[in-house]
């Protein structure tokens, strides 16, 4: 493990988490829109939406750490004609811009619903293209048996769904807990600056403050019902994907073990203690999601959300460490044919 690899582990996981969260949140939004009021939908979805931006920015910054000469960084767009790396960077930045534009439109409630949905759809499509290009970077290298396999795109998509589902669920729960903390957020603003004051004072800061209050307003009982149902679904989806990751990991090592000498070297790296920890943590993620989170989502009341929030947070951390180990192994398993 070195800085070069670590920066790419962080970039790939962060970008996959961002894309996964954005698309899952899109699905949640489309489902909620048919059942809840627009205000309720916004209030449930908003906290997770604004958590995606920082994740994507962390990823993009980490990716810069793996270049040898940052002065030439703007050349990396030049070879989109044949290089999957150029395409990945273009799609990555385009996804970030479209996502950021959507977040801004949502924050300031600017533009028609159709326009905002179009921007969101564009960001989602760019996100899918980003995942595809990211996987092709590795899949297209014929000289690396451990990468030239369907397992690479599978794992990238699986990471996006698992981390995306966990991030969305965790953001919703953290928001619920924070909103429940009385009434610290308002006290900060001071007595002279009430809600109506800010709105009347207008200006950018006023708008931002009032939007903060809107998002931080306590979760209502009906919103809580939606939140827990969403959480149960996210837990199920996440658990299924975590189990799939474990199954595919074992198939992957088995396939490589039956390959040539170079594939065997990769298989040896993928059979070490690190892999066992990866499988153990991903297994724990599946169990926590499928049992603890799923059941707690059904029984937890809005007045006492902390246990569910804590469980969600712990599950997310376990999954992140598991994915980090898994992605590190992806790079460590890089052995080329030839010399």
């Amino acid at each position, binding site marked *: 493990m070195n800085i070069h690899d670590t920066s790419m582990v962080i970039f790939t996981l962060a970008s996959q988490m961002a894309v996964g969260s954005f698309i899952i949140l899109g699905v949640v939004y489309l489902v909620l829109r048919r059942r809840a009021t627009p205000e309720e939908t916004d209030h449930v979805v908003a906290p997770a939406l604004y958590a995606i931006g920082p994740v994507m920015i962390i990823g993009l910054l980490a990716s810069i750490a793996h*270049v*040898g000469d940052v002065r030439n960084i703007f050349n990396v767009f030049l070879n989109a004609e*044949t*290089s999957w790396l150029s395409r990945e*960077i273009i799609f990555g930045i385009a996804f970030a811009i479209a996502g950021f534009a959507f977040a801004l439109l949502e924050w300031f409630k600017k533009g028609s619903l159709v326009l905002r949905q179009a921007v969101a759809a564009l960001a989602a499509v760019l996100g899918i293209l980003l995942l595809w290009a990211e996987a092709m970077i590795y899949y297209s290298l014929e000289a690396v048996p451990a990468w030239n396999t369907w397992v690479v795109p599978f794992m990238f998509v699986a990471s996006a769904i698992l981390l995306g589902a966990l991030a969305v669920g965790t953001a919703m729960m953290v928001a619920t807990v924070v909103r429940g903390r009385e009434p610290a957020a308002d006290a900060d603003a001071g007595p002279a600056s009430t809600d109506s004051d800010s709105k009347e004072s207008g200006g950018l800061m006023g708008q931002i403050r009032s939007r903060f209050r809107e998002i931080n307003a306590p979760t209502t009982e009906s919103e809580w019902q939606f939140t827990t149902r969403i959480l149960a679904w996210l837990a199920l989806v996440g658990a299924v994907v975590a189990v799939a990751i474990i199954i595919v990991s074992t198939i992957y090592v088995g396939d490589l073990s039956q390959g040539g000498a170079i594939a065997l070297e990769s298989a040896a790296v993928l059979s070490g203690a690190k892999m066992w920890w990866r499988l153990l943590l991903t297994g724990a993620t599946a169990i926590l999601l499928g049992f603890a989170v799923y059941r707690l989502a059904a029984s937890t009341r809005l007045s006492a959300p902390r246990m569910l929030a804590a469980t969600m947070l712990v599950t997310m951390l376990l999954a992140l460490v598991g994915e980090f180990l898994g992605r590190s192994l992806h790079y460590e398993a890089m052995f080329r*044919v*030839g010399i």
Partner: protein
Amino acid sequence: MSTSMTEPGDKYGFFFDQSLCTGCKACQVACIDKHDAPLGVLWRRVPEYSGGSWQVDGKTVTPNIFTYYMSVACNHCEDPVCAEVCPTTAMTIRDDGTVFVDQDKCVGCRYCEWSCAYSAPQFNSDTGHMSKCDLCYDYRSEGLDPACVSACPSRALDWGPIDELRATYGSEAGIAPLPDPSITEPHLTIRPHRDAQSWDHATGHIANPGEI
């Protein structure tokens, strides 16, 4: 003479006579010296490929072992994957078919390093850029042979337009430890050692991994 050694469309490559190579690494040293490469950057490398077994017949044990050398630089492939994957277009194919790193463009992401089965592109940590064999473009421009070719005491290396090399020496390029040539389509042709093994029937191993 001078212009004919960088002729557009000539697709230059190397010939390696494995039957003559003694593994002395004069080619490797000449390359480092010519290009002033920093420690650890080896545009030309000489892996030692060894293997074998023994036969037991009654009380007689007969060893059957082999070792041969492979001198490898960039093979200036027909459709170079390094140039395909390079995000910056720094990996450039000259009109004469040779591949070089444009130092003004390279961002040092090392993606080409992952893609090449010959480890031809190598990272130079002094510059933060990739570096690789350009088949001594400056020497060729002056009508000189590449440094490695001139340096070989066994005259095991030759270079030229790949079609001419293949016409003279044949078109073998799939000798272990080199990979399946259909992946890379190298501008390389080899006269195999008598014990040479083809890439798909390789039983040996590289005996000097620390030296390449």
